[in-house]
């Protein structure tokens, strides 16, 4: 097993940031710092760990992953950025939606290795607790979610949709939000939130 050497420091930084952000309500207190996953050389010798430097939320994030590691797993399992959710891992639910070079994509079907040097924006980069982005604030006000699991993907999709100018009517919003499944069925509130946020944009 080969030890990752390049990225440990950055990873720890990212990890600590992740923990520092935990707060009320309901945060279990029994959390301990996460370990570094340890990518290891695989059998063929050509397919082992690689280093990829992503630009995540405006900051360089070097990661040691495998060529087969999805952007979603890189974010969740390697970088500790768990705001991006895994719902189906097959591109069919939209919970993992992030922006890559400004476009909304599903990170589960994106290879992290192909994102070298690209700008990745996740829900963690969209706003902060004290200063919600307009879409986040509208989702909160209109209760555009219930369980909250699809919500980061919905919000990333909604933010992109507003930039794409697909807010001409409720029908248009619905169609262009149909790549994000909400099993709690918050759709009417999601549409209301987007209409509201688009009006303020």
């Amino acid at each position, binding site marked *: *097993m080969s030890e990752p050497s390049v990225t440990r420091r950055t990873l720890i930084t990212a990890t600590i940031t992740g923990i520092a952000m*935990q*707060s*009320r*309500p*309901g945060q*279990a207190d*029994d*959390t*301990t*710092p*996460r*370990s570094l*996953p340890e990518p*290891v050389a*695989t*059998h063929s010798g050509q397919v082992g760990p690689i280093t990829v430097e992503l630009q995540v939320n405006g900051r360089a994030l070097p990661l040691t992953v495998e060529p*087969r*590691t999805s952007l979603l*797993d890189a974010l*969740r399992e390697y970088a500790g950025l*768990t705001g991006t959710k*895994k*719902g*189906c*891992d*097959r*591109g069919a639910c939209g*919970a993992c939606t992030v922006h890559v070079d400004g476009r909304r994509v599903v990170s589960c079907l994106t290879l992290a290795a192909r994102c070298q040097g690209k700008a990745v924006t996740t*829900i*963690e980069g969209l706003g*902060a607790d004290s200063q*919600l982005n307009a879409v*986040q604030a509208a*989702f*909160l*006000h209109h*209760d555009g*979610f*219930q*369980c*909250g*699991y699809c*919500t*980061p993907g919905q*919000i990333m999709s909604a933010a992109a949709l507003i930039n794409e100018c697909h807010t001409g009517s409720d*029908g248009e919003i*619905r*169609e262009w*939000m149909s790549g994000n*499944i909400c*099993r*709690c*069925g*918050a*759709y*009417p*509130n*999601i*549409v209301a939130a987007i209409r509201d946020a688009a009006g303020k944009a």
Partner: protein
Amino acid sequence: MPYIGQPIDRVDGHLKVTGRAKYAAEFAVLDVVHAVLVQSTVGAGAVLDFNLDKAKSMPGVLSIVTPQNALKLATKGGGPQTVRAPLLQDMNIAFNGQHIAIVIASTLEQADDAASRIQVKYRRDEPVTSMGSVLGQAYPPKQFRNGERPPDSMRGNPDENFSSGAAKVDATYVTPMEHHNPMEPHATIARWDGDRLTIWTATQGISGAQSTLAALFDIDPANVRVICPYVGGGFGCKGSTWPPATLAAMAAKIVNRPVKLVVTRAQMFTSNGYRPRTIQKLRFAADDEGRLVSMRHDGFSQMSLPMLGEFSEPVGLATEMLYSCPNVAVTHRLVPTNASLPTYMRAPGLASGNFALESAIDELAVALRMDPLEFRLRNYADADPHENKPFASKMLRDCYQQGADAFGWSRRSPEPRSMRDGNVLLGWGMATSTYPTHRMPASARVRVGANGTAVVQVGTQDLGTGTYTVMSQIAADTLGMPVERVQFELGDSTFPHAPVSGGSMTVASVGPAVLAACEAARDKLFDLALSDPRLASPGSDRAALRLQEGSVVGPAGQVPVAELFARHGQDFIEGSASAKPGAEQKQYAMHAFGAQFVEVRVDADLGEVRVSRFVGAFDSGRIMNAKTARSQLIGGIVYGLGMALLEETHVDAETGRIVNANIADYLVPVNADVPNIETILVNNQERNSNPLGAKGIGELPMVGVAAAVANAVYHATGVRVRELPIRIENLLT
């Protein structure tokens, strides 16, 4: 103004919209490794042999657990949420997609890859894959409604009176196997510290998980800590403690490392239950004045092989009590197949049963040439005809009236195919909704600090239903403090006990406990205050005091709580309480009600059905938060629309393997499927059901939706569809 009832934003909303709410798989646990489940590809038989050579040689693999080296689990103890199979305790295969092995490796990629390299030699028996082939083997459930009542009921003589009816329906209705598909897959992180197990798991019941894992691993429940602050949707499939959680704990014990096990979306279809397929035979008759004279509802629901447990879909519950009819028979039977164990799914029994019931009622109204709403009013039950008791409250007439007014029902032209817009046929349909009001014991504790804040703790869950928010509102009102000062904590089994979050009973169960605990703390505060001359004169009692904006207010003036604490040298005051159902349970029949109105647009040539308008009017008792309540209502309606038009799990007839075990082919509603939904709440006065008057709101809005849509499709097209989901091919007339 009290907080209860106000549409305040969710108190956990900031965390959810910023991605910082942490779900089970997202906790940072030192040295965690990854587990992946391996499932059978045959539907019946046994594993004869595993070839693990290739898998074991893969990089990063730490261990592979099969029935040959699995830990032996205890076979006694646990409770109704305990699932005992399949837990790798033997080599038998009861269904296709059964867990047969666990691969544990350093990374998820490694575990997943190695899992695909396991070779399995099976004995293949012929699986029973359809109910139809074994309907004759149907048997009565042994533990119907957890053994609280027999599976059959009868009043009067329905069979004799059927023949005398002026209008009759004798029809069979079918609902498919459906899967919950919450957006968060089942996920667990398990860590052992000696004999102590800490488990972060996606569950609707941390207390059930605690008792189940303690029983299976034969350890003291106090040594099991279950943590689950957020659940990414449950809908029933996270109610029991299903095998993946137990297997994660087993894997962690075997590799002596913390283990993370996230079930894949495909595996979700055989890992944590489903709504069983039902075949329902209804024989209803009404006299020529539109009074029901006979109702018989024989329900058959799909089951696994009995060795996996038992679950019965209670399809006849509403038939017993919804209408005033002297002759009613209801039966429930189970049909064993080679499928995994079914379970509760949003409005179990009622959702499936009401599709049949409310379709048949519509068919009777059509036969009588009577408006379907008028027909229902003629058979309105003012008291519960099944239990012979008054309802704690029933404002269903108001639901009908206000729903019909909002929808414009009076403008409906009764004839099928009579409303048209170009190529599109319009249909208007309606149905009644009902769901029983449940309540179970719960406990709570609160600590009021000198700084004017309160922390309330209950071992309950928030599935997105709003528990954090409404409990904060209840506490804030009781403690007389701004809701921002209340921190409500849940999802930790070290907190006071609460029941599973299911059956729409969390507010009714946990709310009174929170109320009582806060009252207990408040009383202690008042006792301090009574000794303060600025507030009370000698002889005055607590009733003279109240809490308001962080101060105790008495006849003589007010004192900030912080000052009271300082004077008495206290940093905080604690209150704890338990609350449980009382005599009202025997006194009243308790149900929530609603009326669903829907407009569909059916392409006359292409058969596509689109829902264009929906109005739901509900009596779910007192509302804690108008905003989260509406979300529950629209969410339930959307779930019902999926049931009506999209959802069905397909099982391959030859192998018993689920064909559409993914969320691209198992269709759930997307945003474009859902129109504007108007919701109306009619009863905010309820006090009889429980101290908060909450009758439950999570499941009610789903009930009746499928029937309302089917009735609307009939009105649009003249085609009566008695099997869900309603499909294009049903309507290519």
